[in-house]
């Protein structure tokens, strides 16, 4: 789910940086307020472990494939949402800087898509309410059941949010011609399956920790002390349902208010006669439509080789030919720089 820089427009990337930066600022403030200096090495070591742990392949029974662990849920269950969020930021930064997994400019968006949902939504709306609820009854077995349920539900829900955000950010950036609805339909089911697998793996790790050292898990201590649940499971389900409605409603509004890329490419737009153009008559769908005019104007201003003719440089054709020749010259200069660099290095070594 790591987004590359090329998939985002600067405005969207900046917005996501501001959003993620704000949450990071609040998290740092909260950590300072808690005044637990010994937490920093724990966060670093756990983050390093999660980073490495995400490279382990877990065999999925009955299939030939493998899955990975979900870092956000695991870190927030062990360290809490604020510390988990900051640890995830660092993991994503290292993945981006040293492994080219996600872009530097897209880091804000990646933090939001993976760390924010995984840590804050995953913890406050899923982990804590479920672990503190009376789901499956009382006792250790019930608590184990709640940890498993919280891990699986948490991974599925947070990955769905993350995947939806990827679609939204890419679409708002105007990067892909893939219609919004089709993009959502492509991303969400894939991440549903990934979320389920990641949830099972995360549940297995957290259950192991629960069996060995339950005090390391957040809110499990609270359960041992029989603290009352702050929010009932019904309330959690209600919140999730409202969130789903908001997301679903927003999705349908966006999907219906913008003609998708296929409509645009084939039929111009709705005003040009959607039904009439279904026969794909070239004259009808192309020349007189508003979309074709737009395409024409784009072609005029940014065209790249419209023809082979060497026309006057002021015409679009001339400009385009110039663009190609200029690009070739750039390539030539690049080659020269390489050759010069190689020559001087050899000279230096000899």
């Amino acid at each position, binding site marked *: 789910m*790591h987004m*590359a*820089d*090329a998939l*985002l*427009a*600067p405005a969207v*990337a900046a917005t996501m940086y501001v959003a993620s930066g704000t949450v990071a*600022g609040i998290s740092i403030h909260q950590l*300072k307020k808690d005044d637990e200096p*010994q937490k920093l*090495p724990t966060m*670093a070591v756990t*983050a*390093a*472990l999660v*980073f*490495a742990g995400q*490279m382990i*392949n*877990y*065999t999925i029974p009955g299939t030939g494939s493998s899955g990975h662990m979900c870092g956000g849920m695991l870190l927030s269950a*062990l360290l809490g949402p604020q510390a988990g969020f*900051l*640890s995830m930021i660092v*993991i994503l930064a*290292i993945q981006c800087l040293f492994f*080219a997994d996600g872009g530097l*400019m897209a880091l804000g968006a990646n933090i939001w898509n993976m760390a924010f949902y995984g840590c804050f939504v995953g913890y406050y709306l899923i982990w804590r309410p479920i672990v503190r609820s009376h789901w499956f009854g009382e006792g250790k077995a019930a608590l184990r059941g709640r940890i498993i349920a919280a891990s699986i539900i948490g991974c599925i829900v947070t990955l769905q949010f993350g995947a939806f955000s990827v679609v939204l950010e*890419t679409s708002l950036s105007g*990067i*892909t011609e*893939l*219609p919004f609805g089709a993009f959502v339909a492509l991303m969400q089911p894939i991440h549903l399956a990934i979320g389920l697998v990641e949830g099972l*793996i995360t549940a297995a*790790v957290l259950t192991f920790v629960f069996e*060995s050292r339950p005090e390391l898990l957040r809110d499990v201590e609270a359960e041992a002390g029989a603290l009352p649940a702050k929010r009932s499971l019904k309330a959690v389900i209600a919140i999730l349902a409202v969130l789903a409605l908001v997301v679903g409603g927003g999705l349908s509004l966006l999907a219906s208010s913008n003609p*998708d*890329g296929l409509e645009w490419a084939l039929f111009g737009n709705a005003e040009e006669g959607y039904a009439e153009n279904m026969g794909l008559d070239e004259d009808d769908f192309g020349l007189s439509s508003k979309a074709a005019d737009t*395409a024409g104007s784009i*072609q005029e201003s940014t065209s*790249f080789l*419209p023809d*082979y003719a060497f026309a006057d*440089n002021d015409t679009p054709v001339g*400009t385009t030919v*110039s*663009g*190609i*020749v*200029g*690009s070739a*010259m*750039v*390539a030539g200069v*690049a080659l020269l*720089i*390489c050759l010069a*660099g190689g020559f001087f*290095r050899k000279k230096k070594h000899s």
Partner: protein
Amino acid sequence: MNKMEKALHELGEMDDLAARSSPIHDMSATAKLLTTIAYIVTVVSFDKYDLSGLIPLVLWPVLLFQLGGIPVRTCFYKLRIVLPLVMAVGLFNPIFDRAPLLFLGSVAVSGGVVSMLTLMLKGVLCLMASFLLMATTPIDCLCASLRTLRVPKTLVTLLLLTYRYVGVMTEELAIMTDAYHLRAPGQKGIHVSAWGSFLGQLLLRSMDRAQELYASMLLRGYHEHFHYAPVKPFTAKDAAYLAVCLGVFALLRFVPVAALLGGALVR
């Protein structure tokens, strides 16, 4: 070599590259960080059909590769991660954006093809910029630079500490994975029966180790302040480099240099 050993190798390779000496390596990390961000913003701000406008920006990484003596091969190896996702998104463009944008003789080239190529080039250029930053700047210097740019101390210290422990943890897990596979030959991944215990055991040990680590940090005089690498002063040379880079990026962004160069030749 398993996945984790490969990751360790990549980390070591980046560290080695960053420790070299060259005019680019000797530059202040702040100047390099700011120019990298400016470059990436310039690259992604180009219109999706403006392939010819984007091409002159190739020169900047090419120049840096040469001046820094960085092998291009190492950078292209990292493309295996970026390109599939970019391609997955870009490949739909020729399908959905079929409106002819230009003609190569009698062959029409759709807007989708041009936008796909632009997207891929943007992906490659952005990766090159980030790679060059890390291949010419040690992590300590980058962290020190982040502090001068007022990035919170907690986050920077966490980044530095995590980076140090990524190597330790990855090595530990690589050994564990090798040991597991030697005991379970022919098995592709970790069996479902060991899903929890495999990572869980290391997790428990690591949490304890973190407490020991904190104790040792205190014994060595740690008092919520971390000593970074000595910060290279931001000299006039760095300011000039930054100003020239920003000026060139602005020029390439707003002036169709490739078209003008070509035009001059065609005339």
